[in-house]
């Protein structure tokens, strides 16, 4: 047993990481589904979209042969509508509330139609938006993730000159670095960022990290306002013995490596344990399997009723052959010669509801031992607590505190997205960016 890379052939990698939600192959195919849409009034799908995309309208625009109008309808509400069509857990958002579900009929494939309408617009950089004349106001956006890009696009449309500071060498944030490669490719992420900046008025400074190469104080001095969309960091520590053994990997780092270095370069164990059952845990588990791990076991300390991922995602892991152990919490990682060999788990049962409303877990006193050679930690992500504190930003356990107007305690400094909420969907971050931009515009005009 060992952790090695290059487990598969190029063809196998290609097959394992091909697009999980293939697009409509033809316009006719899209029309069959688009014509099923009932064009609901005050539609449940719109209300279930954090960015409130006018879904019935964009679908109707597909049927009326108005592809530009359709793309504009989507992207004016959600500038990352292309990426969201690939990564959104639509089964719990728009598609989950489609009225067809109430007729026990398959819902409209909204994500697939949204991809149909946005893909060409992004690939061909359709000029769907125009900037208003420059106001000469300048705003710095920290983080070129979904929140930052969404904020930057709204601001630039209103004639604000935006400079984005991004610590990585590419934009897109978690879209580019933190999501399973079979959902969205790095190339698409790059195209999407380029589409967003094609508006003009948005300059992105890459490899510029807050607290290292850029200081918040300088930004406050140089710009009329600052928006922080810095996201969250690595996975939560397990705080158990053996966490520093070779073979204990962070899910975010693991996914980052897959997306940055390519599939053959990323080492993976024979028998992998994944801790946690959020979307990131699923992305890590399925990709470990797809990189060639022979056994992947997901360890979750509660039951299916409490799991944070959707059932669709869980089924994805099951179909990939991942095993799930419910009601088990990691207790100790055992190693030999500094390398992981076993994971000991406490078996749990459910107790009274905790502060989050989910039932708490209580140790039964029994344990189980798994023979493994790799542990991937995916039990939630940690906010950048030190960075936030160093900059005297009010926060709660590292999550930046903002008021109703998206403002932090520092004058002219706004924030939104994962760095505020601790980590939600891409589409939530896009909406946070829109809200932040609206607040900044009001601030600049007051």
């Amino acid at each position, binding site marked *: 047993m060992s952790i090695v890379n290059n487990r598969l052939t190029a063809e196998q990698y290609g097959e394992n990481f091909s697009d999980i939600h293939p697009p409509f192959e033809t316009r006719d195919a899209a*029309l*069959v589904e*688009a*014509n099923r849409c*009932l*064009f*609901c*009034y*005050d*539609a*449940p*799908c719109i*209300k*279930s979209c954090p960015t409130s995309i006018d879904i019935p309208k964009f679908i109707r625009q597909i*049927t009326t042969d108005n592809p530009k109008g359709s793309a504009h309808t989507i992207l004016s509400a959600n500038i990352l509508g292309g990426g969201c069509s690939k990564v959104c857990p639509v089964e719990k958002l728009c598609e989950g*509330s489609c*009225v*067809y579900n*109430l*007729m026990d009929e398959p819902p409209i494939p909204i994500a697939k139609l949204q991809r149909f309408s946005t893909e060409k617009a992004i690939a061909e950089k359709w000029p769907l938006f125009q900037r208003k004349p420059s106001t000469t106001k300048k705003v710095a956006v920290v983080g070129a993730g979904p929140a930052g890009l969404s904020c930057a696009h709204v601001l630039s449309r209103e004639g604000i000159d935006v400079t984005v500071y991004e610590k990585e060498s590419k934009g897109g944030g978690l879209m580019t670095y933190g999501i399973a490669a079979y959902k969205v490719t790095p190339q698409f992420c790059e195209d999407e960022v380029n589409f967003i900046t094609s508006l003009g008025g948005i300059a992105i400074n890459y490899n510029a990290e807050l607290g290292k190469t850029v200081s918040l104080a300088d930004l406050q001095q140089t710009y009329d306002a600052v928006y922080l969309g810095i996201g969250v960091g690595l996975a939560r520590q397990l705080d158990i013995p053996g966490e520093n053994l070779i073979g204990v990997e962070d899910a975010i780092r693991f996914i980052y490596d897959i997306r940055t270095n390519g599939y053959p370069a990323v080492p993976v164990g024979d028998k992998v344990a994944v801790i946690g059952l959020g979307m990131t845990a699923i992305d890590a588990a399925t990709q470990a399997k797809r990189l060639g791990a022979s056994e992947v076991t997901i360890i979750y300390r509660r039951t299916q009723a409490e799991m944070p991922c959707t059932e669709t995602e869980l089924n994805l892991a099951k179909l990939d052959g991942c095993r799930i152990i419910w009601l088990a919490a990691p207790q100790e990682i055992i190693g030999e010669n500094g390398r992981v060999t076993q994971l000991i788990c406490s078996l749990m049962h459910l107790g009274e509801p905790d502060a989050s409303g989910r039932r708490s877990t209580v140790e039964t006193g029994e344990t189980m031992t798994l023979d493994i050679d790799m542990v991937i930690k995916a039990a939630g992500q940690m906010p950048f607590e030190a960075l936030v504190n160093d900059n005297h930003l009010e926060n709660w356990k590292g999550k930046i505190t903002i008021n109703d107007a998206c403002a932090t305690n520092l004058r002219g400094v706004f924030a939104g997205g994962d760095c505020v909420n601790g980590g939600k969907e891409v589409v939530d971050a896009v909406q946070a960016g829109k809200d932040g931009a609206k607040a900044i515009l009001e601030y600049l005009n007051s």
Partner: protein
Amino acid sequence: MADLSANFLGIKSPNPYWLASAPPTDKKYNVLRAFEAGWGGVVWKTLGSQIKNVSSRYSSVDYNGSRMMGFNNIELISDRPLAINLREIAECVRLFPDRAMVVSLMADNSREKWHELIGQVEDTGAHGLELNFGCPHGMNERGMGAAVGQDPEIARMVVEWVMEKATIPVITKLTPNVHSVVPSGQASVEGGTNGLSLINTIQSITGVDLDTLVPNPYVAGQSVFGGYCGPAIKPIALKMLTTISQDPITSRVPVSGIGGISTWKDAAEFLLLGATTVQVCTAVMKHGFRIIEDLCEGLSNWMDEKGFKTLDELIGKSVPTITHWEDLDINYHIVAKINPDKCIHCGLCYIACEDTSHQSINLAYGKPYNTYSIIEEECVGCNLCKLVCPVDNCITMVEQRKGDEYVNWKEFQRRGLPLNDH
């Protein structure tokens, strides 16, 4: 099992479904395929002086993903040699003696030409003649087709010429490109026609190509008004048929109904409004002759369920229920009722009523699902909400009479009863 056999002026067919005079009945090959499939009869594509057709010939209107909701053509009468047509007609009659063979005619504008053509056609053994007074493109520019049918006196004159010669039943086919089909129908009946058929196609432009900016169908950078048909025209055809069924002169003769018939339900409706047989074209041009099976089976099953044993029992049965607006009962009142168990919260009823009708539906906000209910005192019973609702029987209309007695508009005025106050 209901008896579907039809008898139109002695022209018998095993079912009331004839193929209309059109491209599907242009030659023996097609007609034999139709008879083998089970069609009750055909009206052979119009014969006359040989003409030349153009390319292209058809265009259509699609609706929400459904192709050919409406269809139009600029094809003229048969462009094949008359002798070949006559020979093939005779062969078809010989091979399928139990099927109706009616031949559509459009002779040049003289008594002699009509007499000559009728004589040739009767020699084939055909069972009846249909006079094409309706073709709305090309032939009318030459003073034939719709040009005859649009002028009752010319129609009467030509029918009289025909009746001098014909020894088999004559059906006169009426054009809908008039304000009313009744005057030409009356003139034809008075001229002696044995039966009527309607409607022919409606002059139309199906659309303009938004790349070339030339209307459809495209012929070398130009187009022409075409004859519209298919499901889109059925309501117009039903209305025109009913006016013929109601008129004391035209109702003396049997009618073969035409216009957008695609299903057995369509056929039942034509029969109920006075047709003795029905003619089909667009539906077979879209699907082929195989649809005859369901046309017969569906009609037969429905007749069994309703207790109709023969077609005669239902022909014209709905005609008396079409009355004058002034005779409608004003005390009859219905209100909409939404079944909350069936409602899928699409809001289509609400927005239709709110934007375009009587603001009779209440919206109670919910996320993601709003709840909708009827404000009965505002509901006028227009049916709109029920029509737009995508769920069968989710919205029903419940009778809430305004009074026990029948009161029509004339009586309502005479008594000085109150009008609406808002």
